[in-house]
Protein backbone atom coordinates (compact mmCIF):
# COMPACT_ATOMS: atom_id res chain seq x y z
CA UNK A 1 0.00 0.00 0.00
CA UNK A 2 2.71 2.45 1.00
CA UNK A 3 4.54 1.52 -2.19
CA UNK A 4 1.65 2.81 -4.29
CA UNK A 5 1.52 6.10 -2.39
CA UNK A 6 5.27 6.62 -2.59
CA UNK A 7 5.25 5.91 -6.33
CA UNK A 8 2.46 8.48 -6.74
CA UNK A 9 4.50 11.02 -4.78
CA UNK A 10 7.61 10.25 -6.83
CA UNK A 11 5.70 10.71 -10.10
CA UNK A 12 4.41 14.06 -8.86
CA UNK A 13 7.94 15.08 -7.92
CA UNK A 14 9.04 14.31 -11.48
CA UNK A 15 6.11 16.34 -12.83
CA UNK A 16 7.10 19.24 -10.56
CA UNK A 17 10.66 19.04 -11.88
CA UNK A 18 9.33 19.13 -15.46
CA UNK A 19 7.36 22.26 -14.54
CA UNK A 20 10.47 23.75 -12.96
CA UNK A 21 12.38 23.17 -16.21
CA UNK A 22 9.56 24.44 -18.46
CA UNK A 23 8.23 27.23 -16.24
CA UNK A 24 8.05 30.46 -18.21
CA UNK A 25 8.49 32.74 -15.19
CA UNK A 26 10.77 32.56 -12.19
CA UNK A 27 7.72 32.19 -9.95
CA UNK A 28 6.58 29.05 -11.76
CA UNK A 29 9.94 27.54 -10.96
CA UNK A 30 9.80 28.58 -7.31
CA UNK A 31 6.28 27.14 -7.06
CA UNK A 32 7.51 23.86 -8.54
CA UNK A 33 10.39 23.77 -6.08
CA UNK A 34 7.95 24.44 -3.23
CA UNK A 35 5.77 21.53 -4.36
CA UNK A 36 8.89 19.38 -4.67
CA UNK A 37 9.89 20.27 -1.11
CA UNK A 38 6.54 19.47 0.49
CA UNK A 39 6.40 16.22 -1.47
CA UNK A 40 9.84 15.36 -0.07
CA UNK A 41 8.40 15.68 3.43
CA UNK A 42 5.45 13.45 2.49
CA UNK A 43 7.74 10.90 0.84
CA UNK A 44 10.03 10.72 3.87
CA UNK A 45 7.07 10.15 6.18
CA UNK A 46 5.68 7.41 3.93
CA UNK A 47 9.12 5.79 3.70
CA UNK A 48 9.32 5.77 7.50
CA UNK A 49 6.27 3.51 7.48
CA UNK A 50 7.25 1.56 4.37
CA UNK A 51 10.50 0.37 5.95
CA UNK A 52 9.23 0.52 9.53
CA UNK A 53 11.85 3.07 10.60
CA UNK A 54 10.17 5.80 12.65
CA UNK A 55 13.38 7.84 12.87
CA UNK A 56 12.71 8.98 9.29
CA UNK A 57 9.95 11.15 10.76
CA UNK A 58 12.60 13.35 12.38
CA UNK A 59 14.21 13.83 8.97
CA UNK A 60 10.79 14.74 7.55
CA UNK A 61 10.32 17.44 10.16
CA UNK A 62 13.80 18.82 9.50
CA UNK A 63 13.01 18.95 5.77
CA UNK A 64 9.72 20.73 6.45
CA UNK A 65 11.58 23.38 8.46
CA UNK A 66 14.32 23.85 5.87
CA UNK A 67 11.83 23.98 2.98
CA UNK A 68 9.83 26.92 4.35
CA UNK A 69 12.89 28.96 5.26
CA UNK A 70 14.47 28.18 1.89
CA UNK A 71 11.42 29.25 -0.12
CA UNK A 72 11.08 32.50 1.84
CA UNK A 73 14.78 33.26 1.40
CA UNK A 74 14.67 32.63 -2.36
CA UNK A 75 11.55 34.80 -2.69
CA UNK A 76 13.18 37.62 -0.75
CA UNK A 77 16.06 37.49 -3.20
CA UNK A 78 13.89 37.54 -6.34
CA UNK A 79 11.52 40.18 -4.99
CA UNK A 80 14.46 42.45 -4.27
CA UNK A 81 15.86 41.93 -7.73
CA UNK A 82 12.56 42.52 -9.55
CA UNK A 83 12.00 45.71 -7.53
CA UNK A 84 15.41 46.99 -8.50
CA UNK A 85 14.78 46.14 -12.14
CA UNK A 86 11.44 47.99 -12.09
CA UNK A 87 13.14 51.01 -10.55
CA UNK A 88 15.72 51.03 -13.34
CA UNK A 89 13.01 50.68 -15.98
CA UNK A 90 10.90 53.57 -14.72
CA UNK A 91 13.85 55.95 -14.51
Amino acid at each position, binding site marked *: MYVVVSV*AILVTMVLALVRALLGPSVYDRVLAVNVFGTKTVLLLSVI*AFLYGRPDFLDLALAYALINVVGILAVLEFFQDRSRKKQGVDSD
Partner: protein
Amino acid sequence: MIDIGLDILSWVLLTLGGACVLIGGIGGLRLPDFYTRIHAASLTDTMATLLIFVGMMLQSGWSLATMKLFAIMLFLLLTGPTATYALANAALLSGLKPGDKGAQGKYGENVE
Protein backbone atom coordinates in the same frame (compact mmCIF):
# COMPACT_ATOMS: atom_id res chain seq x y z
CA MET B 1 -13.13 -6.28 13.82
CA ILE B 2 -12.37 -2.67 14.66
CA ASP B 3 -8.77 -3.22 13.59
CA ILE B 4 -9.84 -4.39 10.14
CA GLY B 5 -12.17 -1.41 9.84
CA LEU B 6 -9.39 1.01 10.77
CA ASP B 7 -7.05 -0.71 8.33
CA ILE B 8 -9.51 -0.38 5.47
CA LEU B 9 -10.25 3.23 6.36
CA SER B 10 -6.58 4.16 6.49
CA TRP B 11 -5.92 2.43 3.17
CA VAL B 12 -8.79 4.32 1.57
CA LEU B 13 -7.39 7.59 2.94
CA LEU B 14 -3.88 6.76 1.73
CA THR B 15 -5.12 5.84 -1.75
CA LEU B 16 -7.17 9.03 -1.97
CA GLY B 17 -4.13 10.99 -0.81
CA GLY B 18 -1.98 9.41 -3.50
CA ALA B 19 -4.63 10.25 -6.09
CA CYS B 20 -4.73 13.86 -4.84
CA VAL B 21 -0.95 14.14 -5.11
CA LEU B 22 -1.03 12.81 -8.67
CA ILE B 23 -3.91 15.07 -9.75
CA GLY B 24 -2.12 18.08 -8.29
CA GLY B 25 1.05 17.19 -10.19
CA ILE B 26 -0.88 16.77 -13.44
CA GLY B 27 -2.68 20.07 -12.81
CA GLY B 28 0.64 21.81 -12.26
CA LEU B 29 1.60 20.80 -15.77
CA ARG B 30 -1.74 21.31 -17.51
CA LEU B 31 -3.12 24.58 -16.14
CA PRO B 32 -2.53 27.63 -18.33
CA ASP B 33 -0.84 30.29 -16.19
CA PHE B 34 1.02 30.82 -12.94
CA TYR B 35 -1.89 31.88 -10.76
CA THR B 36 -4.00 28.88 -11.75
CA ARG B 37 -1.06 26.56 -11.11
CA ILE B 38 -0.98 27.74 -7.51
CA HIS B 39 -4.39 26.11 -7.07
CA ALA B 40 -3.05 22.75 -8.22
CA ALA B 41 -0.14 23.13 -5.80
CA SER B 42 -2.48 23.95 -2.95
CA LEU B 43 -4.50 20.81 -3.77
CA THR B 44 -1.41 18.67 -3.16
CA ASP B 45 -0.29 20.83 -0.24
CA THR B 46 -3.45 20.67 1.86
CA MET B 47 -5.76 17.84 0.84
CA ALA B 48 -3.08 15.28 0.02
CA THR B 49 -1.13 16.14 3.17
CA LEU B 50 -4.24 15.77 5.32
CA LEU B 51 -5.30 12.46 3.75
CA ILE B 52 -1.89 10.80 3.78
CA PHE B 53 -0.97 11.89 7.30
CA VAL B 54 -4.35 10.95 8.79
CA GLY B 55 -4.10 7.59 7.02
CA MET B 56 -0.67 6.95 8.52
CA MET B 57 -1.82 8.13 11.95
CA LEU B 58 -4.59 5.53 11.85
CA GLN B 59 -2.01 2.87 10.99
CA SER B 60 0.36 3.71 13.82
CA GLY B 61 -2.24 3.83 16.58
CA TRP B 62 -1.45 5.52 19.91
CA SER B 63 2.32 5.93 19.85
CA LEU B 64 5.09 8.47 19.68
CA ALA B 65 5.04 8.20 15.89
CA THR B 66 1.43 9.45 15.85
CA MET B 67 2.39 12.52 17.85
CA LYS B 68 5.25 13.23 15.48
CA LEU B 69 3.05 12.74 12.43
CA PHE B 70 0.48 15.11 13.89
CA ALA B 71 3.14 17.71 14.62
CA ILE B 72 4.56 17.50 11.10
CA MET B 73 1.08 17.75 9.58
CA LEU B 74 0.20 20.77 11.70
CA PHE B 75 3.49 22.41 10.79
CA LEU B 76 2.97 21.81 7.06
CA LEU B 77 -0.61 23.10 7.19
CA LEU B 78 0.37 26.24 9.11
CA THR B 79 3.43 27.18 7.06
CA GLY B 80 2.18 26.10 3.63
CA PRO B 81 -0.29 28.98 3.14
CA THR B 82 2.27 31.50 4.38
CA ALA B 83 4.82 30.34 1.81
CA THR B 84 2.13 30.30 -0.90
CA TYR B 85 1.02 33.82 0.06
CA ALA B 86 4.62 35.06 -0.04
CA LEU B 87 5.04 33.50 -3.48
CA ALA B 88 1.78 34.84 -4.92
CA ASN B 89 2.36 38.29 -3.44
CA ALA B 90 5.91 38.42 -4.80
CA ALA B 91 4.59 37.51 -8.25
CA LEU B 92 1.85 40.16 -8.01
CA LEU B 93 4.26 42.87 -6.84
CA SER B 94 6.74 42.06 -9.59
CA GLY B 95 4.00 42.85 -12.12
CA LEU B 96 3.00 39.38 -13.29
CA LYS B 97 -0.65 39.85 -14.28
CA PRO B 98 -3.18 37.04 -13.81
CA GLY B 99 -4.20 35.60 -17.16
CA ASP B 100 -1.21 36.88 -19.09
CA LYS B 101 -1.81 34.02 -21.46
CA GLY B 102 -4.66 31.58 -21.80
CA ALA B 103 -8.10 32.21 -20.34
CA GLN B 104 -9.56 35.75 -20.29
CA GLY B 105 -7.38 38.79 -20.07
CA LYS B 106 -9.91 41.36 -18.93
CA TYR B 107 -10.17 41.01 -15.18
CA GLY B 108 -6.86 42.72 -14.57
CA GLU B 109 -8.46 46.15 -14.94
CA ASN B 110 -10.62 46.35 -11.84
CA VAL B 111 -7.61 45.60 -9.66
CA GLU B 112 -5.96 48.51 -7.81
